[in-house]
């Protein structure tokens, strides 16, 4: 019995979600191997070899792995799958895209978004936007799993596992990468940030969103998030959406500014250690989960907070 963790990376550095996925894999019981499939990804493979608990890193190189397209990644994973009882992905946009393709090719069910490993075949996962927790048993021989990163601590680093370069297996793909628009900024990644400052519809415009939320995020060294309402209204980019179908986050501190707190939003942030809500509506549901609620006009309170810090 051994687990294969699919590393998420940009060919240079590993995404932090990989570390939480390794912790889940260790909990499954067997030896843990990590697959780094990429283009010129030697640096990422080296970084992977330092994760504690990883016995071996498999490094596959091919040009088509550059953007992690599902068809090629699935082909590579399937070529290795027979040696593993568990195949784990982070439940990120990339992991969610690839994992079911692997599971269906193996004719096995996939267990999505696990938050706990009870035994090698039994897992806990949220359903109905986290309003219920299901304990499920996977009956297939191979367990294909996506891991909700907020459910597991990040694995430590500092060890040194061997890196084995393996033969790349790619698909006769019918899809091609055309381009991407990835916002470059110096902020921490939303799902890995220790502090998140999030804005809602009450901000009223993209300009106000940036004018009010950015200084607070800068001051706290925080990532920025948004409610679905704010994203739909165009105040914040799509990938800032925190919630059931957006990013699931659990920072040390989550500051919700002008967010009313729909259940879909709460589903994405209620595991945060400390929640602060700033809202002028005393009845806003966000106050029911907030450790510290400040009933105030955010346009006054947030700048005041920035200068008080």
């Amino acid at each position, binding site marked *: 019995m051994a687990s294969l963790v699919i590393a998420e990376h940009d060919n240079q550095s590993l995404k932090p979600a990989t570390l939480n996925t390794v912790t889940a894999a260790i909990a499954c019981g067997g030896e843990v191997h990590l697959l780094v499939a990429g283009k010129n990804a030697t640096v990422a493979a080296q970084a992977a070899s330092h994760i504690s608990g990883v016995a071996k890193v498999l490094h596959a190189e091919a040009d088509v792995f550059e*953007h992690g397209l*599902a068809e090629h990644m*699935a082909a590579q994973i399937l070529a290795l799958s027979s040696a593993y009882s568990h195949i784990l992905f982070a439940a990120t*946009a*990339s992991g*969610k*895209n690839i*994992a*079911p*393709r*692997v*599971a*269906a*090719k193996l*004719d*096995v*069910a*996939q267990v*999505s978004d696990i938050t706990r490993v009870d035994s090698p075949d039994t897992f806990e996962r949220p*359903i*109905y*936007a986290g*309003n219920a927790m*299901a*304990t*499920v048993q996977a*009956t*297939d021989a191979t367990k294909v799993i996506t891991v909700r990163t907020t459910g597991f601590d990040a694995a430590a680093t500092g060890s040194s596992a061997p890196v084995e370069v393996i033969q790349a297996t790619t698909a006769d793909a*019918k*899809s*091609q*990468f*055309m381009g*991407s*628009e*990835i*916002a470059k900024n110096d902020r921490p*990644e939303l799902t890995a940030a220790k*502090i998140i400052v999030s804005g809602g519809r009450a901000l009223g415009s993209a300009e106000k969103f940036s004018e009010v939320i950015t200084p607070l995020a800068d001051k706290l060294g925080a990532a920025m998030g948004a409610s679905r309402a704010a994203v739909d209204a165009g105040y914040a980019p*799509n*990938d800032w*959406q925190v919630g*059931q*179908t957006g990013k699931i986050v659990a920072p*040390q*501190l989550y500051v919700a500014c002008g967010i009313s707190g729909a259940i879909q939003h709460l589903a994405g942030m209620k595991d945060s250690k400390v929640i*602060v809500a700033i809202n002028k509506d005393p009845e806003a549901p966000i*106050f*029911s*989960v907030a*450790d*510290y*609620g*400040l*009933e*105030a006009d955010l346009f006054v*309170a947030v700048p005041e*907070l920035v200068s*008080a*810090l």
Partner: protein
Amino acid sequence: MKALVAVKRVVDYNVKVRVKSDQTGVDIANVKMSMNPFDEIAVEEAVRLKEKGVLTEVVVVSCGVTQCQETLRTAMAIGADRGILVETNEELQPLAVAKLLKALADKEQPGMVILGKQAIDDDCNQTGQMLAALTDWPQATFASKVELVDGHLHVTREVDGGLETLKLSLPAVVTTDLRLNEPRYVTLPNIMKAKKKQIDIFKPEDLGVDVTPRIKTLKVSEPPKRSAGIKVADVAALVDKLKNEAKVI
């Protein structure tokens, strides 16, 4: 070109479900059921592609209990041309649904299949990708823009950090994200028209698919409750609490 669109009947997104006291599941007796919101976006996208002349027919499929016909009628009121119900009382998991859709894709030979990225009941986010695997078709998940250019689909996808555009040969599988479109309101005349549209009914056996669940639910429990904290009087009090009590800044 024909599109197949899969729609799921789920507990309405406004309903806060309750866990049954015997922990066997959530109580969905007498709660409002609706079309999965992501599937509504899928139907809307297909209907818009038909209105643009890209598609000639939109066929909606639902798998599950008899009442899924209501979900199909809603899809046809949005503008889908006809419906297919794969009727069963068995619990259907994503792999089983993907196999049923594969069997229907073999029969109907669509140019594309459009599905919601995720159902808001089991939150699995699997079926579209599994269908793409079983058919060996290319996939573009989490779509925020779909265009047909020179016989290929150009799909912009929502990924971590931003957007990505893929070019797919047809047939292909697309799953929808929230920003793809805003579904129209169905009008009464269209609801009436939808009543006359055809629904074909199959059983999983008719399609040669074994839908036996592969994942057993052992129990369903309440999530840990988070209780409300305190209200602070002003910004100074908030900063004091964060520094000295919570010690997070």
